[in-house]
Structures are given as C-alpha cells and as structure tokens.
C-alpha cells in the first residue's frame, strides 16, 4: 500500500481530542500513502474522522502520534509557523463554502496565497491570471464573488488552489454547496487537472462524487475500512 514515489505518507497516525473531560480517538492508527498524480477520494459518514484526517493531510493540524511525511518534510513535528509555510507551498485548498474574500475581485482572490510567500508583484498578477484561465474564468478577472454563480465562485477557489503549483489539491466537499449542474462542471475540472498530472484528494460523504476518483479510501470510526 505504501509506494515509493508517494507525495504524502501517513504512518500509524492517531489523533486524540479531549472533549468535556473525555478522550475521543478521532483517528486510530491510520496509515496511507498518496502517490504523485493520484486522484483519491476519502469517504465516510459524519463522525468517521474524515475531517480530522483532512486537517492532518492539509497540514492544518498535527497528529497525537504517528508520522506524516509530505515530500520528504516530516509534517508531524512541525511548529505552527512551519505548518503555515508548508500549507502555502504544498497544499491547495478547496472548501465547501468557497471561502472567497467578499468585495474582492476574482484575480485578487486567486492571488491570495502568492501574497503570503513573497512572490514578486509582477508575477502575482500573471500567475493568478493563468490559474483563472485554466478554470475557464479568463474573462471574469475583475468580477467580485457576488457577481459570480456558485459554480464560478468554486472555480475561482480552484484557481486559488492551483496558483502556487501545490503538491496536493485538497478539496473538502467541493460540490456540497452547488446545484447538480455546477457540481458536474466542478468535478470535470478536477478530472481535467488529474489528467494533467495533479495530485488530488477529495473529501466527501457522497458516494457518487467519491466514485469519480481513481481510488476511494473509506473511513469509519477513525479507521480505514477499505
């Protein structure tokens, strides 16, 4: 299961939360590897530890025990500041709620991650424009989120995820807030990106969406079931 050319590797990862004095084991000895260029979906009902796994893959959190490696970086031992840097360089987030900045143009929204890694200002605009062109929004650079449909907003968010050329694109229920037509459009974009060699991790509770990936990881009670 653990390949040699893996981008991301989780080894015996556990995460324990303390809630109201009780210890809750959200992840229980999870091991997995994601290879370069893979399109993987993670599926599970709510309470399965899906979100916790996503936070650890997205370098938003570190495990209580176990080892997480992202392209030779041992993420599990990183400080908050180091995690911020690795998120900026290696992870492209796509959220269910889009999370675009209001009253801010598509171009500026897409360029947001570049602002945090010291990219030269002349490059920022160029790269953000290229990323928006990739998701078919080259004509709407100056539109604000409230002038865009839900599907278009999610495409801006995908452009924002692409702009830093990350190792992994991590999408959390990307179609959850969209009508079925827009949902299909967004999934098409993910498939296209996969064909271009992107590594994509899709977190969802929807079997249909999950099945469109190359490989599905099923999670239940903090453990991988298949």
């Amino acid at each position: 299961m653990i390949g040699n050319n893996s981008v991301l590797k989780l080894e015996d990862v556990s995460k324990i939360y303390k809630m109201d004095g009780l210890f809750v084991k959200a992840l229980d000895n999870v091991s997995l590897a994601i290879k370069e260029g893979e399109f993987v979906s993670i599926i599970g009902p709510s309470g399965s530890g899906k979100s916790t796994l996503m936070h650890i893959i997205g370098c938003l959190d570190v495990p209580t025990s176990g080892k997480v490696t992202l392209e030779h970086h041992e993420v599990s031992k990183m400080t908050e500041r180091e995690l911020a840097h690795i998120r900026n360089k290696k992870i492209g987030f796509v959220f269910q709620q889009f999370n675009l900045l209001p009253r801010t143009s598509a171009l500026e929204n897409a360029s947001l991650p570049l602002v945090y890694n010291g990219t030269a200002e002349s490059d920022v605009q160029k790269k953000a424009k290229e990323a928006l062109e990739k998701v078919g929004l080259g004509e709407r650079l100056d539109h604000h989120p409230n002038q865009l449909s839900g599907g278009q907003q999610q495409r801006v968010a995908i452009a924002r995820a692409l702009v830093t050329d990350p190792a992994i694109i991590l999408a959390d229920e990307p179609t959850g807030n969209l009508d079925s037509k827009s949902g299909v459009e967004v999934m098409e974009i993910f498939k296209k990106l996969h064909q271009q060699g992107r590594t994509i991790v899709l977190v969802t509770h929807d079997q249909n969406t999950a099945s469109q990936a190359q490989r599905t990881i099923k999670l239940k009670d903090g453990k991988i079931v298949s």
Partner: protein
Amino acid sequence: MPIRQLVRVSLKALQTNKSRSLLTALGVIIGVASVILLISVGSGLKTFITSEMQDMGSNLIMVVPGDIDLDKIGPGAGGGAASSAFSSISSSKLELDDLEEIEKIPQIEDSVAMVMASSPVRYKGESKITQVIGTTENYVNIRKSEFEKGGFFTKSEVNSGRKVAVLGYKIAEDLFGEENPLGEKVKLGEYRYQIMGVLEEKGGQGSMSPDDKVFVPITTAQRQFDQDNISLIFAQVRSGDEVSPTVPLIEEVLKRRLKEEDFTVLDQKEILSTVSSILDTLTIALGGIAAISLLVGGIGIMNIMLVSVTERTREIGLRKALGATPEVILTQFLIEAVFLSVGGGIAGIIFGGGGALILSKFMPTTVTLWSVMLAFIVSATVGIVFGITPARRASRLSPIEALRYE
C-alpha cells in the same frame, strides 16, 4: 511577506468598511484636535503676555503698592494667595513724593507714575466706559509711544493740573470717526478735557494695550478721582544688567518713607518667570484634559478592532489555511489599528491647526511644533497599545476553528 503588501491588505480592509473606519478614527481626530487646539490656546496666551511684557522693555523696574510675594502666586499656590497679594492696591500708600525720591537714584534714567480709574468718556452723542490713566510726561519716553496726531502733555501741564487728554487710537476712532479730534473737547465724568494728541495704533488686547485708554496729567486725575496716592511707578535704567543692582536701592529709599508691607519692587524677569510658569501649568492642564478624549478614542479603536476580528474570523481562518503565519496576521491587524489612529491623528492635527487658525481671530493662539509631534506620537502609540489585544486575538485563532465559524 513584504510589509508593502500587508499595508495594502490592511488598507483594503479599512476601505471596505469606510464609514465604520471613519467613525472609529473620529474618536482620535477629536482627541488630537482638542489637544492641539487647547495647547495652542495655552501657549498662545503665554507668547502674547510674554511679548507684551517684553515690549515694555527689559530695563524696567516696577513699584506697586502692597506686599506681593511672587513665589506665592506661582503654580502650587492656590488662587487665594494671588488675590490676596493684589488686594492692597486699592489702599495704596505710594505717593508722587515717592517718585521724586526714586528719581534721585543716579542709576535711574527715567521714571513715570500712574494712577488708573474707570470713567465714561463722552463726545457729542458717543459715550464709552474706558480706563483713564493719569500719568506724567515721561510716559512717552518709557513706553516709546508714537503719535498719530498731535503730541503728549508737557511737564508744565502736569504741574499745573490742566484738563488735557491724549486718546488711544481705538477710542479716538470710536468717538470721532473721520473727524479730527485735535482741539476738540471730550467729557470725562463731569469735566471737559481738551484733546492734545492721538496715539498710534499698537494692536493687541488687554491691560497692556494703550489703544482703548485715555491719558491725562496725573495731577488732574488725582483731583478728579479724589486720590492722593498712585497705582504704579515705572523706573527705567540704562540697560538690562542694571536692573538687579538697582532694585535694592529703590527698596532702601522707599523703606525710609514707607512700611515694608506697603510697597513691592518688581523686575521684569521675576514677573515674566512667574507668569510663564503659571501659563505653563495652565497649558499642561488643558492638554491633559484633552488627552483624556484621546484615550477614549483609543478605546474606540480597540472596541472596533475586536468586533472586526470576530466578524472576520472566517477570513482569518482562510488566510491562515493559505499560509499566513500568526505573525503576519498580528501585523496585519496592528497595521489596521495604527492606520486608524495615525490617520485620525493627522486629520486631528489638520483640524486642530485649522481650529487654532480660526480661533486666532478672537484670541492669541500658537500651534507649537512640540504639541503636533506629541499628538502624532501619542496617537500612533494609542493605535499600537489598543490594537495589540485584538491583533493578538486574531493571530491566535486556530485555522480549523476559524474556518468552521459561522
């Protein structure tokens, strides 16, 4: 992350909430403007009084009735000390003979005595209550007066107690308008006085300006207002250096004739330092009161920044997920707070300065560089001090929690 981009992000956040930003800054604007304005009034008053006194010449010694202890008037003493120090003026025991004795001291070049009284002055239909100053012919030399028309009364007119008068510029204008007052007669109380001259305009207001006063021979004034005593003696020495050695000489002469508590010899330097220390205290007190509003402005900034952090929790979470470190978030919110306070500070300086300029038409004001610098530094500090708590709160938000926040 380069500071320039952080500044841009902060400015944009302030721009998206224009009216709120403006209202928040308003607290600081009012605070800074009132600090600038009130300090300008205080220091304007000081500059005005000091220059008025220096206009009189640095080589003057004053003799006033009563026992005045300048140390008791200065800051730290209550107003009671000041009023009791001057209360004895009305029962002056100084007389014209004392002036003659003082004039015998060789260091004294010139001297003048004055009595003061209030009286209505009338010409045709016009009437004004004014201050009448009875004095001697030396007044012109000591005050270096210039004349618009005519001249001053002479020694013989003083000696014979003639009813002649010299008008201040404003009084002449008010009573006569375009008419030539020379040779005309005005009525002071019950008596008619012939006008000999009109003084040139001196400008300024208050007790030191001769513009709205009427001058008559001291003997005439004493008779008309039924006074034997005099209110004030000015003695002039050749140079400022001779002031200090001459003061004890005058005291010695007067001690032979009067009791110690019946007179006080004052020199300019002493009066100036007392007056300016009183005015300094006043300025600081005014500035201190205004500074309280600056503090309130700072609290306003903190309040709004805390609201803003809560409101933008999701945005903070997003920025953190996309790679903003806690330091970057802290800096961003701190810059916002400092922009509000410094922007408010600059606007406050402009409004305060403008206000002082308008006010200067009615009273003396001086906008001092130090008050502008102080206001600027204090407002920037207010931004940092009151911005740090909200900024720290923002920087400590967990990205996971923040992204979940509804």
